[in-house]
């Protein structure tokens, strides 16, 4: 195997053009230039250079889509998103972003599980990730209740009968109450989710990507195979 090594300080635009061409160097510059440049670690182990490891990032991207479209929707209001063409488009964009969010989150959780990345102190991030996922399912319910169409009406009453007549904290909500649903969907759950996702990604940044699983027969650990 080649033993030439590219070290720190070989990350200038010119270095990167020489390494893999102008187009790629340009596309990746967001990870090297201000304001985000400092936030990204530049090296990853070769085995993690697969699309499976991009699923968490895509989940995050879809969360950003959801937040941005959600702010606009909340700002302009239900009559707008249910009746006006652009409002309906934005509502649909929000809907499909949610579909994508769950799609990528499930792929991400599968890759984390299948690579045993819950081991050791990454257990904490396993817990945070799953908590985000469960909150997202709750967020989905309140989004449905806050939508304001027939499905909202039906589900609000149906879920009241089933869930929200329970004692303890369920008594606090009235799912038929559109205003409360919208408030919970817009200002409560997503704020908690955002904070937890921030912690989740920060932990990944601090802990790095988990080391690979392999069969115990192996004598030379992968880490030595530079």
């Amino acid at each position, binding site marked *: 195997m080649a033993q030439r090594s590219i070290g720190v300080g070989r990350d200038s635009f010119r270095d990167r053009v020489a*390494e893999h061409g102008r187009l790629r160097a340009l596309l990746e510059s967001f990870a090297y230039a201000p304001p985000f440049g400092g936030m990204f*670690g530049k090296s990853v182990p*070769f085995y993690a250079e697969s699309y499976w490891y991009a699923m968490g990032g895509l989940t995050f991207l879809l969360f950003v889509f959801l937040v941005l479209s959600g702010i606009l929707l909340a700002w302009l209001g239900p009559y707008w998103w249910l009746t006006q063409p652009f409002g309906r488009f934005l509502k649909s964009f929000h809907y*499909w972003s949610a579909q994508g969010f769950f799609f990528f989150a499930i792929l991400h959780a599968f890759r984390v599980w299948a690579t045993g990345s819950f081991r*050791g102190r990454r257990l904490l991030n396993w817990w945070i990730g799953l908590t985000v996922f469960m909150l997202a399912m709750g967020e989905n319910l309140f989004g449905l209740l806050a939508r304001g169409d027939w499905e909202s009406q039906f589900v609000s009453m149906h879920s009241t009968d089933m869930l929200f*007549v329970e004692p303890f904290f369920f008594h606090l909500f009235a799912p038929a109450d559109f205003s409360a649903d919208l408030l919970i969907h817009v200002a409560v759950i997503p704020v908690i989710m955002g904070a937890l996702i921030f912690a989740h990604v920060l932990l990944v940044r601090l802990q790095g990507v988990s080391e690979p699983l392999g069969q115990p027969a*192996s004598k030379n650990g992968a880490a030595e195979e*530079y």
Partner: protein
Amino acid sequence: MAHGQGSQHVIPVVPADDHPSARPVRHAFYKYPLLAVAALVVAVLLAAFVGSPNWPRETVAGASTRDPGGAILAFTQELAGTSASTMNESERGMAKPADVFVLNPLREAAPLLGADIQSALKTYDAAGADQRQAWAAAYEKALGTITPESSGAGDMGTASPDYSRTSSLTGDFGPVPTLVQADLKLAQSGFLEQYLQGVEPGHLFHLVNIWLYDHPRMLNAAVDQGLTDDQWGMVKERGFGVGSWYLILPAVVHVKLPNGATGGGFVLDNLLIAAFLLFAVPLLPGLRDLPRRLRLYRLIYRYPVRGELDEPENMPRAEGYHGRAPMPGAGI
């Protein structure tokens, strides 16, 4: 060419011990803007051409015009204390449905409704609680005699009384028929909906939704459209093919697990599943070893194709990858 696999394209080689190369390489950040744009384009196209579920909301006027018999039944049940809203009154934080949906709106509109209605209200108010209850119960029973056996909505739906035959009913109903017929007029004209929104400003649709669920029409539509529990309603949308498929786990809990259909059972079963995922999957001996045994990670790790590790892009980087150098032993 140096920039790609080119003609060297071969299937990656997985070594016998499955260990992939952990050489620190430059992360392929250039893929991210492309992935982001692709995700954006797909979401925009789906939004523009497929849209999203948007079945028009039901209104009090709509439900009581299309199915006046159902509205008569709902008002009567509210007076008799047998409506869905009465059963869940305290949970919903509302006053007595008989007052909220029938008597208060009629009192509010009484000056415009004429002498008959005003005297019917007086008669009702003057009667004792038992008498009122007896009138309403008798009328509800009589409505049952003009209700068709099947609503065509399957077993779960509730059939509505045949409105055209309500005037033929006789019995000791007191002023109840007059009151519910007057309330029907208020509902059909849109007055009732505006009234219900007005008494709870800031909670626009709360009382409206509760009333619409007293009316048989909404649940019947849900049954017809396959949206009830036993039809996997939780993962479906009315009039739209793609629903919340990712809620399949809670949906299975709701439909299949013991007590899953009750609120308490549903919460408990879901918590058990959550505890399984949170604790058993990563910690329980045997279960936690499953990923290593199944070796599915071989589909996930990138294994180099021949010659790939010699390309300039994959030269080892001296600083190691993030998290490793400053924190040795991060994970096993």
